[in-house]
């Protein structure tokens, strides 16, 4: 057995505390900055009927949408704040949130027409560059509304619609009305009711039968002001035999008081269609991220959620898939990183409602510096869904004694002829693993990063390359100084 090498401290290497300090400074520099506020409108704090009516008036919406919003507001007000999930949920102060902020008159199709401050922000985040290199279309939302939207001409020629939700309501009202809120009704839960009352922005994607959108469509969500509430609404419809990959990312400035992000995302995969939905969530540490995401997959369709949660103060998010047609397939790959002061309550729900449906859930969480990672999941096989197969694997990695991991799996099986497997592990970065790597001359911190990268690799390999690189970089950054 090899003798461990002695690692001589490099005087240029920062101390642990210095490295921890560097983490925050990096977020501020890369994502946590904020712009001057040259807004067209900034609503006062708090939620009233007048706020909801004002949003609807601003957008000149049809009467049915106005009524939808007001009914949803009643649901929101009638429901108590949930008490499950996280104690942090009690800290959400709905009266200290701005529910609508308008930065630009209309979504632009040219970056040159986007207000200068806003354009500079997206330049700094690398969005226009990414658009040129590897995307089929881009939407960029700043505060409450989308400020830029563009999609490749050849996709438009094939009938693909990729636009912001407000424009979709104006230009494709029949399609919106047919599908909107059919997957997540306004009173599904308190936060879905809130989104339904004050929704603004988000993406609308329609892919006609048989059309394959080869390169991803991307949306980037940016919060700039303090105590902001961002409530985008996304609806993706993939007609039979079509394919689309939608990617979303998000960041916000770091403030001392909290913001709220509460999206509703609905996916509809018609027979034989495939939708992949990738999220790289990197909100700042003062954002509550309380999101409802749900999909339906009809016969022979596939829905995949790739869900990466790195940022936010508290995330509660359980992307779900209803397998409604025979041989439909659902897949959720979830990764959560919980550092100091963070609670990532993530997971997945899959409902097998038809015969011979298949699904996989792979969930991984990493907790350090007192952070808390939770897996909360549901696997349901309905009566009659014979021949269904599912595999659930959730692994947690704890990097120190102060951090926490919880697993809350629920499995309901209403059929005998099924094949369901569930595995869960909780592990610590072991002394033996570190010792082995150090014995090969790898410094301890580097060894720890290798172990973490190996742990998350099954998820990151499913990300588009640019995101996998960014994800690894973020994880490495957050890992710095983790071995004391």
């Amino acid at each position: 057995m090899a003798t461990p090498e002695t690692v001589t401290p490099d005087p240029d290497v920062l101390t642990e505390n210095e490295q921890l300090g560097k983490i925050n400074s990096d977020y501020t520099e890369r994502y946590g900055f904020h712009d001057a506020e040259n807004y067209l409108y900034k609503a006062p704090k708090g939620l009233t009927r007048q706020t909801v009516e004002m949003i609807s008036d601003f957008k000149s919406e049809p009467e049915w949408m106005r009524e939808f919003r007001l009914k949803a507001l009643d649901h929101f007000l009638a429901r108590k704040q949930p008490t499950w999930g996280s104690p942090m949920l009690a800290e959400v102060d709905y009266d200290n949130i701005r529910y609508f902020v308008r930065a630009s008159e209309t979504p632009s199709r040219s970056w040159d027409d986007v207000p200068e401050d806003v354009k500079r922000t997206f330049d700094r985040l690398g969005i226009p560059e990414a658009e040129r290199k590897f995307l089929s279309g881009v939407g960029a939302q700043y505060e409450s509304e989308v400020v830029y939207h563009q999609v490749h001409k050849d996709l438009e020629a094939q009938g693909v619609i990729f636009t912001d939700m407000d424009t979709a309501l104006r230009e494709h009202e029949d399609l919106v009305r047919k599908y909107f809120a059919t997957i997540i009704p306004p009173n599904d839960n308190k936060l879905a009711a809130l989104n339904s009352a004050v929704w603004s922005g988000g993406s609308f994607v329609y892919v006609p039968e048989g059309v394959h959108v080869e390169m991803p469509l991307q949306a980037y969500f940016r919060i700039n002001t303090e105590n902001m509430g961002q409530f985008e609404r996304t609806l993706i419809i993939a007609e039979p035999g079509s394919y689309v990959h939608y990617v979303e990312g998000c960041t916000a400035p770091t403030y001392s008081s909290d913001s709220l992000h509460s999206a509703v995302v609905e996916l509809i995969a018609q027979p034989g269609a495939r939708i992949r939905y990738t999220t790289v969530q990197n909100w700042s540490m003062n954002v509550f991220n309380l999101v409802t995401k749900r999909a339906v997959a009809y016969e022979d369709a596939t829905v995949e959620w790739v869900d990466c949660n790195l940022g936010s103060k508290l995330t509660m998010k359980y992307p779900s898939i209803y397998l409604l047609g025979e041989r439909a397939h659902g897949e959720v790959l979830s990764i959560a990183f919980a550092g100091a002061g963070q609670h990532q309550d993530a997971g997945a729900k899959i409902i097998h409602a038809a015969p011979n449906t298949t699904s996989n859930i792979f969930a991984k969480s990493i907790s350090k510096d007192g952070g808390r990672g939770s897996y909360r999941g549901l696997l349901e096989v309905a009566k009659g869904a014979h021949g269904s197969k599912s595999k659930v694997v959730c692994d947690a990695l704890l990097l120190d004694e102060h951090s926490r991991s919880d697993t809350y799996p629920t499995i309901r099986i209403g059929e005998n002829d099924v094949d369901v497997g569930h595995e869960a592990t909780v592990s610590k970065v072991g002394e033996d693993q570190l010792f082995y790597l150090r014995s090969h001359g790898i410094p301890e911190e580097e060894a720890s990063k290798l172990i973490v990268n190996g742990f998350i690799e099954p998820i990151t390999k499913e990300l588009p390359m640019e995101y996998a690189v960014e994800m690894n970089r973020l994880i490495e950054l957050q890992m710095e100084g983790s071995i004391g």
Partner: protein
Amino acid sequence: MPQIIEVCPLTELPPGAVRLVEWEDLEIGVFNCGGTVYAIEDRCTHDDGTLADGELDQEACTIECPRHGSLFDLKTGKPKTLPAYVPVDTFPVIIDEETIKLEVE
């Protein structure tokens, strides 16, 4: 064997009205939807909550579950929106000499 049970005179259930009847261990919601009467089991297939307290849309002929918002088609019992995905049972309605009756089994 199917049985016929009496609900009420038709005049007591005008358009837009709802009435609950019990038969054995079942609760059945009876709805007058624009002049046509429908009956479904009063139990949301999502989480067993009552449907009769929900909002009746006479034009669409749907009842909205008051708990999580699933819309059920009163003619077929099928959910038109999630989170419910299993239909509720429906019961044939008979109007016999201006009296509403249900066929139950």
